[in-house]
């Protein structure tokens, strides 16, 4: 994959660049930012994250499993303790809750990994160390014939550096 990378030190200029790039549809845009700035989300018209669905689904699975464990255990070898019922659902709610949090929480984390395509081994293509400290980066996956256009737009908005990458 190849494209053009522009590094900005100013937030607003980077945002404007992104907007123009979207208008001109040169290619998919990826923005690198040291800290989450929702301006880019507006500019990119990014859809809301899908993590929520995983959280919900696995949370519910957790509750069910959490009730099932103690009930199954108590029923597997019925032993009366303290004159209580064999399977007492009230205290078992604790298991339900804990297992829900456990499974739901882990699912959320892994869903995030999946959706964000991490872990990934390589960060080199279209990335620059500056983007983690102070600069904003805009990466356009442009076809060779349109790279010039992309570079023009980037530099027009005052990118400190614009470079081609493959």
């Amino acid at each position, binding site marked *: 994959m190849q494209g053009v990378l522009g590094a900005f030190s100013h937030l607003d200029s980077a945002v404007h660049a992104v907007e123009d790039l979207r208008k001109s549809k040169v290619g998919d845009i990826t923005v690198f930012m040291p800290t989450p700035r929702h301006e880019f989300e507006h500019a990119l018209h990014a859809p809301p994250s899908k993590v929520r669905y995983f959280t919900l689904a696995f949370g519910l699975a957790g509750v069910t499993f959490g009730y099932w464990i103690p009930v199954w255990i108590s029923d597997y070898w019925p032993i009366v303790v303290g004159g209580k019922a064999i399977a007492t659902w009230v205290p078992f709610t604790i298991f339900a809750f804990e297992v829900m949090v456990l499974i739901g929480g882990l699912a959320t984390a892994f869903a995030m990994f999946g959706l964000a395509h991490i872990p*990934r081994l390589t960060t080199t293509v279209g990335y620059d160390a500056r983007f983690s400290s102070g600069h904003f980066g805009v990466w356009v996956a442009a076809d060779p014939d349109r790279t010039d256009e992309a570079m023009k737009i980037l530099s027009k908005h005052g990118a400190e550096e614009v470079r081609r990458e493959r």
Partner: protein
Amino acid sequence: MTKRRKWTAIPGLLALAAGAVMLSAYSGASTSQKSSPVQPIAFPHPVHVQKLGMNCLYCHNAANKSMDPGLPAVSTCIGCHNLIGPDRPASDLGPARKSAELAKLYKFADVAGVGAGMGPNAKPIPWVRIHKVPEYVHFPHTRHVNAGVTCQTCHGQIQKMDRVYQFASLNMGWCVSCHVNGYSAKEGLEAAGYETVPGSTPAAQGAATPAAVPAADRKKARYDCANCHY
């Protein structure tokens, strides 16, 4: 792309490991199972039980009335063997031969020769123990024998073992599953070598059936902890 798969392989490996642990946990692994140590005298159960048709209780005489099955006293061996000496004539048990094992027995029992009684320097035979449950488990042989459980159910087909080995795992799961699912007289008798035809029910074989238990197919037993652990 291929690189990414590397990372995702790790959870797979973890799952595998977990599976292995569970498997080993469920396998009922018992370090002593199948162990069959060398005995001071290679006592041939097949000859005594299968060929001569001796009852287990002849030697293990407490099995039906005590926790302990009882071990034959040396005098019990000599009872027969002061007539049946090391020099074996040809018989339906085999050709004429000299039995080294019986020689050993005579040595232990300090028997001068055929017909002579036990001498003053008789020593007990140090049999190597094979079947042992932990000390905190109380296993009453009497209850099982009197319930008609054949020895072979737990000890395996002793009558066929030239050298006795630990047949069952003797671990708790093994005990409990029989207590919960019940003992099948049919299987037990088959193991004992009785062909299961009418007339070879436990009762007919002289084993008692507690009145408390109706003639059900499988005899279920208590699985209460304090039944064995106290």
